């Protein structure tokens, strides 16, 4: 079995790579930086925020397949007041979180680089259900990718590719620590390794929508029933407590 993981050198991506290697898979990791090597790990370097670089790298990614599993995990955040975050940072965020996985998904599905049957996984965010004042463009990027995943699920199923979308809440990664308000309680966050394990088993079971843990499911439900109230809570607990602009 062969898997492709984007952003495999840190955080949740690293946890996916470790789990998959432990399960005996061949893993191709696509990232800007290189991680520690392993026997069945093949690394491709590419900055997903750079269009030309991505277009140049696509043939190598296709050749390294075909894949039984693809996880579009790479993502960045930018937190602070919307107007305080520079334009080029916002544009780059949209390219990494939304555009790159869409371009790659189309390229892989259209080129025979996916085994039939196989799985394709997009990583959105629990913010899809809550809104995210203090990260308005991140929220946009994650809503966009969630709806892209939903839109292509049926046509790709006809090609033997089953599409899932994951909506993680706060994880215990460097990424989350950097962007959370200063004295936020990290013990509430899910360890990346647990998240990777639960996501992989839900994806293997063919679930279209993956929300991790009871707490996250309650938040998602609340966000659907009372969207304004939940976004207001997010404003109080995140936006009003952010002391700096971070990207």
């Amino acid at each position, binding site marked *: 079995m062969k898997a492709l993981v984007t952003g495999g050198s840190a955080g949740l991506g690293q946890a996916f790579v470790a789990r998959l290697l432990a399960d005996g898979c061949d893993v191709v990791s696509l990232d800007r930086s290189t991680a520690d090597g392993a026997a069945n790990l093949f690394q491709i370097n590419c900055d997903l925020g750079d269009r030309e670089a991505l277009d140049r790298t696509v043939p190598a990614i296709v050749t390294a397949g075909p894949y039984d599993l693809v996880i579009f995990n790479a993502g960045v955040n930018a937190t602070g007041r919307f107007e305080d975050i520079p334009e080029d940072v916002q544009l780059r965020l949209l390219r990494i979180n939304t555009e790159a996985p869409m371009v790659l998904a189309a390229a892989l599905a259209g080129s025979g680089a996916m085994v039939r049957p196989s799985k394709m996984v997009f990583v959105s965010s629990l913010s899809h259900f809550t809104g995210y004042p203090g990260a308005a463009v991140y929220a946009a990027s994650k809503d966009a990718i969630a709806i892209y995943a939903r839109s292509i699920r049926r046509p790709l199923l006809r*090609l033997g590719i089953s599409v899932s979308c994951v909506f993680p809440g706060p994880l215990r990664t460097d990424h989350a620590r950097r962007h959370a308000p200063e004295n936020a309680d990290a013990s509430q966050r899910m360890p990346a390794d647990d998240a990777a394990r639960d996501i992989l088993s839900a994806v293997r079971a063919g679930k279209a929508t993956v929300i991790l843990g009871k707490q996250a499911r309650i938040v998602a439900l609340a966000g659907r029933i009372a969207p304004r109230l939940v976004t207001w809570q997010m404003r109080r607990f995140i936006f009003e407590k952010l002391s700096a602009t971070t990207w």
Partner: protein
Amino acid sequence: MRRKILITGATSGIGLALATRLAPRHEILATGRALKKDAEKILPANAGYIRVPQSDPLVASATIREGLRDVGWTGFHNAILVAGTGYVCEAQSEDPVRLRETLDVNLAATILIARACLPLLEKTNGRLTLIGSTAARGSSHIASYCASKAGLAGFARSLRSEWRGRVSVQILHPGPVATPMHEKAGYVPGRLGALFLSPSTMAAMLEFAVARGRSPRTLSWFRYIGGESIFGRRL
């Protein structure tokens, strides 16, 4: 009150109908990708025009800033960001050039234009209106278009909260409207097309929705038969 209103994508379809409807009562600054001489042929005579191609988001926001400075607006009341594009295709054969164009024009450029408008909208406690689509819920042959509109919805939801008390932010989701967009997108509506609202009806519904300021709001056929193109409050 005579308002100063910026409308993007005002050279065709919904944006043009809105500019035409509002121009007799308000000061309109229209934008589009067409050349000024071509835009002036179709826009109402008293509307201003600046050419703002949105395929490069950084250029779009810079051009908007410059254009607002050139017309001498130091503050304005409404930014209604209508410009949009999309293409019908199968997900697995989507051309990356079109995919990127859809995201850039609809999502990235709209986001950066919103940012460029903030200082001038804030002076009047004005309103930012984004145009989404009922397709923001997802649809298989226009996946990138749906993604771009869902992105706008997520952006509007969070920004509305962030800007509370400064600038009011809303997103309006029109249902199908009989505009040139469908032909440009390579879509033939067939018999279903008979159910599409006219651009001028949608413009009326939009005006009332902008006047009320609620968000998110779906402007569909059901709202139309409920009388929302006739009985609403004017801007």
